[in-house]
């Protein structure tokens, strides 16, 4: 789960990482008030969970409260890379002497936490990573020992950090480790700026929380920003269904993430376009299946639905009952459904579906081909 910049900064503040003074606002008149309180030039920052915000005009400097209000009015109506702006963060403008980069994340290949620093912070850090990897220092952290002072010193030396900032840098790095250790899978300050007046300041903050660990951090679960997520995705989440919206016209209902991806791939391979990724997980009940179909039926893009189930823990008769339930609730809907059931209780499943007179398929490719032809819009 990604959280917004202003939320990450709240957490930074708790761990005593220096951040610019500021406040989040839901409307332009409050933006003016914040700007007046801050007194000087301010920066207005759109709060969206997507990259490329600066380049899309989502971060702007205002000389006075009037300008801040105007900018906020404009921003609130904007979409940034497909995400509407509902909130802006208003902060004092900070003088920037130098932009650094500092983060802690997970290195999958080494199966280890890794702290990363660079003296080339800012929006071009990814280019730096590709073009000049030697400008980026990575140090693995032993999760049982934690981040050590000598490791932080090595980072400070590698990014040429003046000695007078070392103490603060050590404190910030240690704070990031505390945040990461408490189940953030990524915590990033980019840029971490050296300013004339205030020394080191975290100008931006990104944080991802490990969804699997939310059970031990109920306070973090409340940070989820439902506004920022696709409404079908939010709906799916309620039922414990993993759903990702896509742009095609064939709705997919599958058990298991790997099989769900393979189902999307085969549709594409045969000339169709998947409308979504949908994994109902293992051992799904009829109710869950029915809710999943309900989501697919509510999507105006969907012209045909492909149900692809390999029963292991999942029982195909339960799936068939779910399909029957959904169809009886949506008898006005004329979206064709192709069903493929294999494995546990598949025969019972097909028997339950007999009355519905649905097209069935026994092989993977047959199922995909039928769904594509029923979707009516075959591309090349």
């Amino acid at each position, binding site marked *: 789960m990604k959280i917004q910049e202003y939320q990450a900064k709240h957490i930074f503040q708790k761990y005593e990482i220096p951040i610019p003074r500021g406040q989040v606002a839901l409307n332009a008149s409050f933006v003016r008030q914040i700007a007046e309180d801050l007194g000087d030039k301010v920066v207005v920052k759109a709060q969206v969970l997507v990259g490329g915000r600066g380049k899309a005009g989502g971060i702007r400097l205002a000389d006075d409260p009037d300008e801040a209000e105007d900018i906020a009015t404009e921003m609130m109506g904007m979409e940034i890379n497909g995400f509407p702006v509902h909130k802006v963060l208003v902060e004092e403008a900070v003088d920037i002497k130098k932009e650094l980069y500092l983060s802690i994340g997970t290195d999958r290949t080494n199966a280890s936490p890794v702290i990363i620093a660079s003296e080339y912070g800012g929006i071009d850090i990814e280019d730096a990573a590709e073009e000049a990897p030697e400008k980026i220092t990575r140090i693995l952290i032993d999760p049982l020992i934690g981040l050590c002072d000598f490791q932080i010193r090595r980072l400070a030396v590698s990014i040429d950090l003046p000695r007078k900032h070392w103490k603060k840098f050590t404190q910030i790095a240690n704070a990031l480790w505390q945040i990461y250790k408490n189940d953030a*899978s990524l915590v990033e300050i980019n840029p971490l700026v050296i300013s004339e007046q205030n020394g080191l300041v975290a100008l931006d903050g990104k944080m991802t929380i490990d969804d699997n660990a939310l059970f*031990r951090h109920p306070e973090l679960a409340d940070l989820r920003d439902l506004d920022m997520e696709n409404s079908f995705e939010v709906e799916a989440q309620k039922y414990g269904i993993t759903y990702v919206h896509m742009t095609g016209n064939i709705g997919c209902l599958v058990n*298991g993430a790997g099989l*769900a*991806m393979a189902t*999307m791939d085969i*549709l594409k391979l045969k000339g169709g376009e998947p409308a979504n990724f949908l994994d109902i997980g293992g051992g799904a009940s009829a109710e869950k299946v029915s809710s999943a179909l309900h989501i697919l039926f509510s999507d105006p893009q969907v012209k045909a639905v492909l149900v692809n189930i390999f029963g*292991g823990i999942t029982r195909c008769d339960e799936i068939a009952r779910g399909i029957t339930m959904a169809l009886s609730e949506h008898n006005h809907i004329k979206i064709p459904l192709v069903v493929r059931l294999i494995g546990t209780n598949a025969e019972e499943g097909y028997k339950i579906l007999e009355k519905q007179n649905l097209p069935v398929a026994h092989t993977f490719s047959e199922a995909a081909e039928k769904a594509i032809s029923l979707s009516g819009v075959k591309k090349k």
Partner: protein
Amino acid sequence: MSILINKETRLLVQGITGKEGLYHSELMRAYGTNIVAGVTPSKGGEWVLDEKIPVFDTVQTAMEVTEANASVILVPAKFAFDSIYEAIDAHIPLIICITEGIPAMDMLKIKTILKTSETILIGPNSPGVITPGECKAGIIPGAIAIPGTVGVVSRSGTLTYEVLYAMKGKKIGVSTCVGIGGDAIIGTGFIDMLSMFEQDPDTEKIVLIGEIGGKDEELAADYITTEMTKPVIAYIAGLTAPKGKRMGHAGAIIEGRAGSALQKIELFRKAGVKVAEYPEDIPALL
């Protein structure tokens, strides 16, 4: 022969008295797996599975009494760190962790603990391991695989079933099928499995099922080029997955260009691996 498990495997089930634990233990036993013990803290002294399998409070006692040499873990995610560490600490040679949704931090700690241990950890978020006709440890449906000479290693669950089923349809049998798990941080990766299959005299060919995310397939492609003499056939899921989106598996996140399905497929082809376009295509390539 086979890898990891066989007729001699004496299996312990951690979480045997839970709903999932009991259900799958019954299926494993019906398949012919030699389950010798269960562990559930504070249920020690009870008997399950027709009163034939003893339950212990700790892995250590269970191993002392029953000489169990492998453990399947079917406990809820919030208890999984403790269960895995307990089994490593008791020096069990093999752990197969089925549990899904374990916090990454817990697994990072386990990975560090494993560095000083002889234990092999398969999973978590694994469907298990099956050596057809001999032993099944986990939740892979027993009926979909027949004994044979093809080793199967996969990061996925139901997608693996799909492949096993397609192989069975063409009467192609399996030496051992290993689900290494779909999470970002797992105990054992493709390379260790490839190396075991390479050394197993009864495995002639290997099927590798990968997906987007991480670099494990990329490393496997290198390993195949330099170390493998047996032919490898691969399938990679996720060509159509949108960039940066999470596809259910915590592991399946594309990070930039690295980890994309296309890159993995290209590297496998360069390594001389035949790559199937879809799962049902695999038997034809074997």
